């Protein structure tokens, strides 16, 4: 089973990297960029039937730092 896990900074957590990307886009002349937030995408392949609780635990224990980050798990159709 293939998973895509999106790790994003919580709202309100300052994102210097997103800000730098935003500035660079402005510098390149792209108009109308309101905000940029940088995150991570983790792609995983896990054994079929791995239960949701185990996947959630992986995210909480390692993949995201829940002090600063949220995560969203997407199961990719085969």
């Amino acid at each position, binding site marked *: 089973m293939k998973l895509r896990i999106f790790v994003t900074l919580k709202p309100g*957590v*300052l994102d*210097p*990297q997103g800000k*730098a990307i935003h500035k660079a886009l402005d510098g390149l002349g792209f108009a109308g960029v309101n905000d940029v937030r940088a995150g991570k995408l983790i792609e995983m392949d896990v054994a079929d039937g791995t239960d949701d609780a185990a996947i959630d635990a992986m995210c909480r*224990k*390692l*993949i995201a*730092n829940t*002090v*600063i980050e949220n995560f969203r798990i997407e199961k990719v159709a085969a």
Partner: protein
Amino acid sequence: MKTAVVVFPGSNCDRDLAVALEKVTGAKPAMVWHGESELPAGLGLIALPGGFSYGDYLRSGAMAARSPVMQAVVEAANKGTPVLGVCNGFQVLTEAGLLPGALMRNAGLNFVCRDVALKVENAQSLFTSRYDAGETIRVPVAHHDGNYFADAETLDRIESEGRVAFRYAESVNGSARNIAGVLNDAGNVLGMMPHPERKIEAAHGGDDGRRLFEGLLELVAA
């Protein structure tokens, strides 16, 4: 006092810490590899060094915090053994859940490498008894991810409990409330971004960091 320095792949301040500990305590620390599952018995201090453990993969300190030796460090910390994390060691301690908050990319995105002025906020901890409250000391920083973050509630709590040990005299990296060093609730775990081990003798341009180790030696040995 028996001490240990934990060495992760990518640590690069482990020898600086070992030299500082030997100079102050008179005994060489045990160097403990991250793959070990046990620590030597009778330790008066476990020190987690600066560096770039596991290449900062995923998040600074994230992989190191899950390495085998850290289970032993967490157990020892919970039993009251003093634990000091410097720089990457601080990041490891927050990732391991021994200290509140997280260390994020510096607000200016730059790697900051220079001496900074630190205000001693709590001079009554195991680590800071040789300083005066409100005293300003100068210690170097060298980090890219030193921007301390915690939610407002957590910040209020640690401030009211006297758990902010050190504060930057001026903004260095965007840290919330200029926090540079944090204690756990029991007071036996300290994490700090600045490097006290790099300021222990005149040849370093000052010895403001030395008193941290001297105070610890005095209180732990007593």
